[in-house]
């Protein structure tokens, strides 16, 4: 059953009317999103194209000033040319032009978040109307690159009194530009095999032929958002704000679809990269009341978010037939797989903050917040099939006690087979926070904080079929149980008492308590040092640990003693530890916890290795260091640099063992004249992630969880080191020659990742036969590379006092190599594995633009 689609036809209402009927939407730095509207053509939404006022900043002194940290302010833009109409005045800019793309302009990376073609565009319309008398103003800003990539925004209000804002924004997100689908119906929720492929009866060669003949298509999702908001001063102390936005996402993306393993069974199973439709809408509502008085401040707010998905699930046909591992048996014909979509959900959150000014220049702030995330979407049936599913022993597909591994679809393909028809899941959140800051002396500040956060996970789901009395679930669209007898995923105390399968959902409550205490001390005029002690207690339920404690110490130093240097440095040491790590807390979610469960011969297989430490639960030590420097060698030059390091070492024999990142940046900026600026940056960062894992040796039946035992033998242990290195570089140049303005910018990013592995013995490998000898070994994957260079060159020529023209060229060259997709250029179908997305491709593309800029 499809969920009701809630959509508000904002697009059919002219923007003006929408403003008149306004329920305001105001995103500010305190709450909400949608804080910026621009596009790739001009991410500054018009500010960059204004250029510099050749007169400079002031007549009284040369150059520009610096911010207190030391960064040079940019040259101010020239004052707009204002036209008066009686009480009102207007000014603005209109930019129209033509863009032409060339080269690999269909490439997914080139088109990632932009949709430009060779066409006329509205580069920018920015019109402001003001009435200086009382500060009333209105502004319209718009840019349209194409149907999929445009924004319109209108604001009106009175300075210091109220503001009403409305916007419309379309943004594309291209996920694949070289996708080949063997299904029809992409974008909808019913995928049927194309080109005569027989569901459940086609060979791999058939499918490969259809895949290779399929046209290359683009899979993308477009986000269309409309919003309204207002912000108003009720009195000088009270302000109110409210906002409402509706975002629709529409498109399709590569996804998945399991029909059991292919790797152990040639010409069996199915790993299908199906295409998931995206058709949903999210309505975000927010509003609040704020009070800012001399002694008190208050902030009351409500946030609501309502997600509605058009489809509850999508179905797809599988082309492949299955065969069981038992000789003489036959697999039931399965033709359809299903994939549940995200459920419709609701979110409410109320938050109140009270702040009181204290003597000693202090403040006490108390916050309380309560929220609820809930969903009660209709559940889909356990399997979408007709007839029977499972294995027919002796070649017969007749239901009956002689065929214990064959199941009746009619008892499983409706929601009557569920313990509950709707999800009815809910998480209640609670937050309490208290903060205190005091300045007992002019050079000492003391601060402390306490925070309590709790997520209460309400409800759980028991997987039980009242029609058959079975517990558990139908695994992988029925395919697993159609290949391996007894692995359908069902436990029944009478008919399959030794089946080990999930029978319950996993409730995940959590509670965190934070406490911190810190002090900052100003030494003289030029140095500030600080220290903060922090403690965090994390208490999850139904996880490997009941309690994890983090303790950290942070030391900070800000130095301005040298006239030409501002230095900020900090060091943090954090240690994380917890109570006893239980490697398997999940038994209660498995059939082994049910009465009537009989352990199989040999015992219940262990859930995982005892030595595993999941990295969100493991004990860890962290050292973190940050250094930021701003250097002022000359009045018109700034050099800023930063150094960062974050070293995490996890106490784990198996699992993540280390995660370290280091990086450095350097930026140089020079403004020799009001109309000349240039900058250069270079940066480097490096990260290393190390983990260890261990292969099991007893075909999934091992009962000894110990590392070094017969199942998780030391010989099967292996290690992986993922090293990523990134180099960045870039330069910008902006200069006026006479009245002509030249600008250029170059950017370079080179990312290289190497995954290197080492193993104790060949039994660690998925395919031991692929390595010689019996001892330890190592190797590495081909480098994963992403190297992109882009160059933009532009010239702006004034034609008249109000009209100028800008010509620019944007050339980009990207080289990408991701080993996940090696070989996908030859074929997307390998045995029973069907892929749709051929992966990111290298490209060279160019954009040339001619824009006419008119001062309105």
């Amino acid at each position, binding site marked *: 059953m499809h969920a009701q689609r809630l959509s508000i036809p904002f697009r059919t209402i002219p923007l003006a009317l929408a403003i008149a009927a306004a329920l305001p939407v105001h995103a500010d*730095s305190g709450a909400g999103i949608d*804080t910026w509207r*621009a*596009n790739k053509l001009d991410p500054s939404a018009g500010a960059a194209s204004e250029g510099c006022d050749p007169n400079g900043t*002031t007549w009284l002194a040369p150059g520009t*000033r610096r*911010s207190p*940290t030391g960064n040079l302010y940019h040259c*101010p833009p020239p004052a*707009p*040319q204002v036209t008066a109409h009686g009480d009102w005045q207007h000014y603005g800019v209109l930019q129209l032009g033509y863009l032409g793309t060339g080269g690999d302009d269909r490439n997914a990376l080139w088109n990632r978040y932009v949709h430009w073609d060779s066409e006329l565009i509205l580069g920018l319309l*920015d019109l402001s109307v003001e009435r200086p008398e*009382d*500060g009333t103003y209105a502004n319209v800003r718009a840019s349209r690159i194409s149907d999929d990539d445009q924004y319109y925004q209108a604001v009106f209000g009175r*300075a210091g009194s109220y503001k009403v804002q409305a916007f419309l924004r379309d943004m594309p997100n291209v996920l694949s530009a070289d996708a080949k689908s063997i299904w029809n119906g992409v974008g909808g929720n019913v995928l049927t095999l194309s080109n005569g492929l027989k569901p459940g009866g086609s060979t791999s060669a058939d499918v490969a032929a259809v895949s290779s003949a399929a046209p290359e298509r683009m899979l993308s999702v477009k986000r269309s958002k409309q919003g309204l908001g207002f912000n108003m*001063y*009720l009195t000088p102390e009270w302000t109110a704000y409210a906002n409402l936005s509706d975002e629709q996402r529409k498109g399709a993306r590569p996804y*998945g679809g*399991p029909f059991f393993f292919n*790797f152990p069974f040639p010409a069996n199973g199915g790993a*299908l990269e199906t295409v998931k439709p995206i058709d949903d809408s999210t309505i975000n509502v927010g509003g609040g009341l704020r009070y*800012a008085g001399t002694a008190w401040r208050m902030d009351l707010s409500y946030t609501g978010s309502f997600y509605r998905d058009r489809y509850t699930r999508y179905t797809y046909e599988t082309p492949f037939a299955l065969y069981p591992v038992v000789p003489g048996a036959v697999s039931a014909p399965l033709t359809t797989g299903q*994939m*549940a979509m*995200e*459920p419709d*959900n609701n979110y409410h*959150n109320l938050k109140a903050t009270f702040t009181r000014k204290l003597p000693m220049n202090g403040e006490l702030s108390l916050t309380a917040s309560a929220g609820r995330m809930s969903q009660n979407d209709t559940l*889909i049936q356990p399997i979408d099939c007709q007839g029977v599913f499972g294995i027919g022993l002796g070649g017969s597909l007749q239901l009956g006690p002689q065929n214990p591994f064959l199941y009746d679809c009619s008892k499983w393909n409706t929601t009557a087979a569920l313990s509950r028809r709707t*999800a009815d*899941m*809910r*998480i209640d959140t609670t937050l309490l926070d208290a*903060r205190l800051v005091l300045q007992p002396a002019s050079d000492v*500040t003391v601060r402390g*904080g306490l925070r309590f956060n709790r997520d209460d996970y309400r409800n759980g789901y028991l997987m039980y079929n009242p029609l058959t009395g079975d517990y558990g*679930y139908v695994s*992988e669209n029925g395919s697993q149980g159609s290949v391996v007898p007894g692995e359908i995923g069902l436990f029944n105390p009478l008919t399959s008492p030794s089946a080990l399968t999930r029978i319950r959902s996993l409730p*995940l409550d959590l509670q965190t308590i934070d406490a911190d205490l810190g002090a*900052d001390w100003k030494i003289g005029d030029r140095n500030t040092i600080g220290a903060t002690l922090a403690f965090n207690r994390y208490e999850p339920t139904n996880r490997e640990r009941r309690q994890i404690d983090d303790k950290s110490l942070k030391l*900070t130093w800000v130095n301005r003693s040298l006239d030409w240097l501002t230095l900020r440095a900090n060091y943090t040491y954090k240690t994380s530890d917890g109570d006893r790590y239980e490697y398997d807390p999940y038994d209660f979610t498995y059939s082994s916890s049910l009465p009537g469960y009989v352990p199989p011969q040999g015992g219940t297989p262990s859930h*995982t290795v005892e030595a595993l430490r999941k*990295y969100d639960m493991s004990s860890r030590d962290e050292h973190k260091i940050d250094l930021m420097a701003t250097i002022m060698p000359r009045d018109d030059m700034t050099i800023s640099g930063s150094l960062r390091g974050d070293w995490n070492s996890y106490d784990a024999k198996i*699992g993540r063992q280390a995660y370290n990142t280091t990086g450095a*940046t350097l930026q140089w900026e020079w403004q020799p004249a009001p109309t000349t600026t240039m900058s250069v940056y270079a*940066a480097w960062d490096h990260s290393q992630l190390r983990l260890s894992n261990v292969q099991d040796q007893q075909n999934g039946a091992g009962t000894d969880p110990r590392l070094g035992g017969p*199942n998780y033998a030391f010989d099967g242990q292996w290690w*992986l080191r*993922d090293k990523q290195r990134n180099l960045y570089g870039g330069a910008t140049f902006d200069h006026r020659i006479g009245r002509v303005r030249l600008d250029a910018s170059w950017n370079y990013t080179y990312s290289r990742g190497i*995954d290197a592995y080492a193993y104790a013995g060949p039994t660690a490998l*998925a*395919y031991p036969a*692929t390595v010689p000898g019996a001892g330890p070994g190592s190797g590495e*994957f081909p480098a994963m590379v992403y190297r992109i260079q882009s160059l933009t060159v532009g010239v702006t020529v004034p034609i008249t006092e109000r*009209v100028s023209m800008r010509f620019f060229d944007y050339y980009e060259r990207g080289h990408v190599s991701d080993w996940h997709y090696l*070989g996908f250029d030859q074929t997307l179908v390998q045995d029973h*594995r069907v892929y749709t997305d051929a992966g*990111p491709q290298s490209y060279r593309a160019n954009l040339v633009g001619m824009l006419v800029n*008119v001062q*309105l």
Partner: protein
Amino acid sequence: MHPRSRLLRAAALLGFWIAALPGVHAQQTREDLSRDLPASGELTNADVQSTGRSLLAAPGFAKAKVATNPAFPDATPVGEKTCIACHQLEADHFTHTLHALGLHAAAKADPSIPVCETCHGAGSQHAQAPLTRGSIIAYTKNGGTPIEVQTKTCLTCHEGGPRDHWLGSIHQRNDLSCSDCHNPMAKFSVEGSLARDSINETCAQCHKDVRLQFNRRSHMPLPEGQMSCVDCHNPHGSLTSPLLKTNTVNETCYQCHAEKRGPFLFEHAPVRENCLNCHTPHGSNQHALLVAPVPFLCQQCHVNQRHPNDMHTPQSLATGSNPDERIMGRACNTCHANIHGSNAPSGSKFHE
């Protein structure tokens, strides 16, 4: 003709008309504007009545008064006209900012509301000896005004709301002034009175490393101008350590990715706990902002018997001797597609 082309052509003609006829409407020169400005002291009743309406100063400017400069407490106000006599170019740039629009309108309605001196303090000392540092509240380096005085002055009007938790916040503790990020003296940015072209450029002055991470292979559309740092972070201070605007990391992500909120019938514990267990928000060399490549990302936690704990080599790739779906393409997620949680009763392992 295609309706879109029609619209563009109409807009082009409109622009051409406006550009080609400059003389039709009077242009307001700077001299005209300066004559409109009030000097210090009272406007006469005649001036007020002549506006034809009796205006109340907008509530937002009720707190606007001459700022206190502790370094020169005896200075007296001189009025905007005196200031711009010397600082005309600054006034030129300031005039079309939102602060100017509001302060000028408020000063017209209530002459006791200063304009320049609301932020810069009484100007008599500075007017007599402008080279004395700190004689006026200056917001620049070497201006002579301590940073606490600068931020306190801005907060006289701008206290509360998003700046509720400024005191004790990381930027405040690191001795940042409002003017490190903001510059209301000219319209450098289209919104926000920022010191640079855009929010992202402003943050990148110091946080260049984070900004460059967005240039990596997978990233959210921040470099493309579709979102800004402030969509997730509140630079003025917040209740969380990474300056998030909501109560937790996940709630921040759900603002745009509400489909991941659930709660799902079957949860993937690290997802419910913290999106950052698997994703790195600012940019990644992997697909979909992942911390590590699949399957190794999953194999940090999944050592379960049978298929999760095998070590793969390049022989498992499509070009190898044993192509394996567990590492090709989207690897684990080809079968375990609903990895963020599943609402299917058969989806306890995220297959459906």
